[in-house]
């Protein structure tokens, strides 16, 4: 095992240990809530990043799959009493299936017009769910019945339990990304992201690769949707298919560094911390302040660090490695 490899294994082990121990040290529910948000949006970013980062298919419509996941598990739970753990996987499958026709339509366009088409599909789904009064509660939405402490129904009294659930999701997302990144699919994806025509010319089956990666991305995004609904005990089309979900998934990845394993996590930590600090500094929340700051950060990153902030972290780590005295 060469030195950098050993160090990355060690640092990941340390990171995992810190992540697992954090709820034991941080007990205020305010802080746990922020940690859960960070993990959730990191996970969303990781799911988005497979599609948007590695293959550079810049979707701003991932709320479609977030919402489908949320609605599938909630309908199964409220109407049929099926556990959200099963509903979560079912929601993922529904999202995967939905990504086929949506992808079939949107992949006909490239670049910015792909982006617009994805926005339109997510918005169209929201409008459709607003109309579904009979089995999906229309615009009013519904609250999830509170069963107290029911781990089998994904309901917990301790907030830290939610923390571990979403930490597990993030770990799955990172593991999937790591596996794909280090397989031939990862290289094909990067080739498609660099130049789709050139990739096809050398024999990459771009449509099929894009379709498959879009399905995985949709599946993971749907899991986040189920978790979020269980966490806030409420669902309606405006929150489940919120454009802000699509924005946030893309934003954290771009700020952190698209097409990198840890980019979305770094981006989320930075953005969520900034927004929390701003809110505590200004006392109450001012409408629009959070996204104003986010968009300024996004513009700064695009203009001065288009590869994302992960570059800064990487450089610092390399400098640290170089400065370390070499032991025999």
């Amino acid at each position, binding site marked *: 095992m060469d030195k950098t490899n050993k160090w990355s294994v060690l640092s990941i082990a340390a990171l995992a240990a810190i992540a697992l121990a954090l709820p034991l040290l941080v007990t205020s529910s305010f802080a746990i809530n922020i940690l859960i948000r960070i993990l959730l949006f990191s996970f969303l970013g990781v799911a988005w990043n497979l599609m948007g980062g590695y293959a*550079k298919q*810049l979707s*701003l419509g991932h709320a479609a799959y977030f919402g489908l996941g949320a609605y599938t598990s909630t309908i199964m739970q409220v109407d049929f009493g099926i556990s959200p753990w099963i509903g979560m996987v079912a929601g993922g499958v529904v999202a995967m299936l939905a990504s086929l026709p949506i992808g079939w*339509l*949107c992949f*006909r*366009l*490239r*670049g*910015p*017009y792909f*982006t*617009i*088409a994805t*926005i*339109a*599909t997510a*918005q*169209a789904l929201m*409008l*459709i769910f*607003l109309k579904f009064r009979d089995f999906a509660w229309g615009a009013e939405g519904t609250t999830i019945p509170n069963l107290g402490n029911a781990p089998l129904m994904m309901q917990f009294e301790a907030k830290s339990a939610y923390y571990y659930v979403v930490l597990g999701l993030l770990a799955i997302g990172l593991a999937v990304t790591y596996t794909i990144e280090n397989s031939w699919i990862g290289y094909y994806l990067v080739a498609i992201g660099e130049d789709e025509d050139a990739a096809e010319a050398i024999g990459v089956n771009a449509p099929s690769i894009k379709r498959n990666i879009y399905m995985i991305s949709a599946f993971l995004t749907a899991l986040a949707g189920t978790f979020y609904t269980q966490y806030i005990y409420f669902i309606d089309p405006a929150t489940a298919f919120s454009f802000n979900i699509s*924005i946030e998934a*893309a934003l954290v990845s*771009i700020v952190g560094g*698209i097409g990198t394993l840890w980019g979305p996590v770094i981006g989320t930590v930075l953005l969520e911390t900034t927004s929390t600090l701003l809110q505590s500094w200004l006392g109450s929340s*001012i*409408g*629009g*302040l*959070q*996204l*104003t700051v*986010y*968009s*300024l950060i*996004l*513009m700064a990153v*695009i*203009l001065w660090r*288009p590869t994302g902030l992960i570059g800064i972290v990487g450089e610092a780590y390399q400098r640290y490695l170089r400065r370390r005295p070499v032991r025999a």
Partner: protein
Amino acid sequence: MLETVAQAVINGLLIGGIYALVSIGVTLIFGVVKIVNFAQGEFVMIGMYLSFYLSTQFGIDPIASLVITMPVLFVAGVLIQHFLIRRVLGPNDMPQIFLTFALSLLLLNLALMLFTANYRTVHTSYSDEAFHLGGLYIPVAKLIAFVVAMFLSGALWVFLHTTDLGKAMRAASQNRDVATLMGINPNRVFCVALGIALALAGAAGSLLMPFYSAYPFVGQVFVLMAFVAVVLGTLGNVMGALIASLMMGIAESLGIQYVGADSGLLVVFAMLLLTLAFKPNGLGGGRAR
């Protein structure tokens, strides 16, 4: 029955004129600079708030305030091209998409902070006036907006086809490299394209003000329409965008009439998705890239 249809068509056509101003701007920027301006709707919003304040503070009629909003937004367009967009032009379209997207988010949320989410309206002497033509009802404010919008679109067409600068813009949109070799300064042409596009958005804002409320999210409605119209009308094609916008206005209005009041947008999305499925290069053909 026939009268209801005719009335819906007229309503749609009149609002379609406003959609045309927004989508012509989007398609002009796409054609010349090769970027999609996600913030185009926010400039309509800025135009509306400018007209609102000019009207409430200085008593300037919203439609007349066009002579102020258009130059102000033209200058804004030149500055945005020169200081922001110029820096991200390159083979990779990720920074371009997210720069204009960030600009849209920024302007929208700044508006939310400065003006709050309240709806602002201006009431003019002609806001409630209408012509009656047989059984049909034609609101004066919308008619003026439509006529001015068509006049501005026509003026743009004349500009693009008769002046040197206009021809330079069309040349740059056909082949940027060759145009540069012919001595056309691309950044100057891009600045003018952004300026004109934003001025048109500002004009749309002023024209809307007598019959439409201003609020921070108002641009989103128009920009979605514009994107659909631009795809339908073939990317980068000014005349195509104009015709598609009018069609979209009519389709939306018929959707509201026959599917339900909240279904106008759904009809529009359905049109977009159907177009993508069956005519991905726009109704007129051409390349969708």
